[in-house]
């Protein structure tokens, strides 16, 4: 029996970490993710976990400590947001290239500047090519569930990559919501032990980690790392299927909502996808069909599946809660259009909306603007502007 609970998104992630009981958590506080290590440190103080909690002096050190701990043979976790993630930057790449399946709770916040504590996706989007698997969460339940699945995905022998689980800062991280928890013993059995093949503290088989890698071998290592990212997709599907057997909650590479009979589709991440579903229900009641496509696995980017599913729509609006400053659309837009083009899908008209930057609230009215425009394009086949901003004062 699931445990009916009400927790904030941060608390949900911290509870997942408690149930996972990692060997090491090294973290430095930053709004809005601070509560994750804060709650976790109380679990440590209360003896509810065996974890070595390392309160470091910066996020660079937090990730460095995680790299050391994971390379030593332990299971390491951390949490951060925005500039904290940015300060981890070089270490993110080192964790990934060293094939260390660290798990990071990323509570999305606007990356400075201007200085802002609220939610958008500029932090994790900046790390999208760092070699970390990225999984996005709509609500507290998904933030919890994705944390429980993260170790299994990252630690799979075909993967061995670090995993970033993202949720929206404040909007879900500080919102109390209903969720179902899995019992401790079931989590323990599901997550299992971490038994790396090679690790630093193995007396029988000592290794060297992170040596200089010249042009003679570096390319081969990168190619191998790229393969791990390609192979991660099937592991995400397998682990999610096993999780569904355990909990009844179904997760895929993405969620397609209200797709039946719809010619218009809106692609949107995290909490705004929930608001979009709410509006989609209202539209459906009025006989207007707009599908909501919510990516879950963003790195690796499931090109084949996305192109196949989106091919049926006449009009697609891709919503980006991050500005790429490339004069060519947000990160999701670039990835989605590239996937469609690469797979020879030329039917749908695709437009981009940059929205919600710096925590600008996304109202149902805003979603309606996107829905109406997408319906209009589906009906007329005409696109006036590809690159749009939603909810900014003109």
């Amino acid at each position, binding site marked *: 029996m699931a445990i009916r609970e*009400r927790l904030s998104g941060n608390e949900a992630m911290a509870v997942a970490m408690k149930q996972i009981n990692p060997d090491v958590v090294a973290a430095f506080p930053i709004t809005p993710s601070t509560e994750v290590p804060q709650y976790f440190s109380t679990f440590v103080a209360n003896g509810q976990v065996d974890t070595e909690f390392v309160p470091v002096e910066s996020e660079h050190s937090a990730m460095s400590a995680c790299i050391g701990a994971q390379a030593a043979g332990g299971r390491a976790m951390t949490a951060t947001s925005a500039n904290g993630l940015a300060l981890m930057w070089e270490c993110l790449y080192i964790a990934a290239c060293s094939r260390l399946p660290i798990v990071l709770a990323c509570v999305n916040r606007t990356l400075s500047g201007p200085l802002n504590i609220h939610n958008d996706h500029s932090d994790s989007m900046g790390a999208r090519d760092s070699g970390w698997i990225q999984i996005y969460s709509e609500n507290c339940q998904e933030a919890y569930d994705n944390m429980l699945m993260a170790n299994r995905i990252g630690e799979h022998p075909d993967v061995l990559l670090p995993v970033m689980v993202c949720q929206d800062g404040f909007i879900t991280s500080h919102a109390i919501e*209903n969720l179902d928890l899995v019992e401790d013993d079931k989590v323990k059995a599901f997550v299992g032990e971490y038994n790396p093949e090679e690790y630093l503290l193995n007396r029988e088989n000592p290794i060297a980690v992170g040596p200089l890698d010249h042009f003679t071998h570096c390319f081969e290592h990168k190619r191998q790392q790229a393969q791990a990212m390609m192979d991660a997709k099937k592991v995400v599907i397998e682990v999610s299927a096993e999780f569904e057997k355990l909990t009844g909650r179904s997760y895929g590479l993405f969620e397609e909502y209200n797709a039946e009979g719809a010619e218009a589709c809106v692609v949107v991440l995290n909490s705004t996808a929930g608001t979009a579903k709410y509006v989609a229900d209202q539209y459906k009641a009025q006989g207007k069909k707009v599908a909501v496509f919510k990516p879950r696995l963003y790195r690796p980017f499931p090109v084949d599946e996305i192109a196949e599913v989106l091919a049926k729509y006449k009009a697609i609006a891709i919503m980006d809660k991050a500005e790429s400053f490339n004069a060519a659309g947000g990160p999701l837009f670039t990835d989605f259009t590239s996937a469609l083009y690469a797979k020879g899908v030329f039917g749908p008209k695709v437009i981009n909306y940059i929205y919600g930057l710096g925590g600008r609230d996304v109202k149902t009215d805003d979603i309606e603007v996107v829905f109406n425009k997408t319906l209009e394009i589906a009906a007329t086949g005409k696109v006036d502007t590809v690159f749009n901003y939603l909810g900014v004062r003109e």
Partner: protein
Amino acid sequence: MGKVVEIRWHGRGGQGAKTASLLLADAAFNTGKYIQGFPEYGPERMGAPITAYNRISDDKLSIHCNIYEPDYVVVVDDTLLTAVDVTSGLKESGALIINTTKTPEEIKPLLKGYKGKVCTVDARTISIETLGKYFPNTPMLGAVVKVSGVMGTKEFLDDMVGSFKHKFAKKPEVIEPNIKAIERAMQEVKGL
């Protein structure tokens, strides 16, 4: 889809409006509802106006934006009336619930033409007489439940006894006064 009750709280940093919204979410959760309780974060300073929200529903909630057309607005401090447009978007079928020594008739002219119900409760007096200190959120919680009817007053009180027993396990002497504060607010709220 069942009806979603949406509540917006206005308070000042340090008065416990956020805590009150979370307590209300807790109580509604304990009676089997789907809930959301979330604050709108701004400058985190003692005395700064703050806003918090609740959604309470029989069905799952997927919406994740602030509340612009609340069914109920709770004002924890009547000095906010001049600083904040508290009735913005407030449904006229709903109600404004305010902590004040004034009567509903005295408050109405201050509300930019809001035509719905205005309920007043003197949470300061209740708090000081029952708890010995000024904690307006506990009586305000009682007033909200009474006015909104989001849950039965009996089941709400039973739940609060349970959660106070948990929360004040080391200070059992404060449980009774807190319950008393809620009950008095339920009895004394005016303008129903």
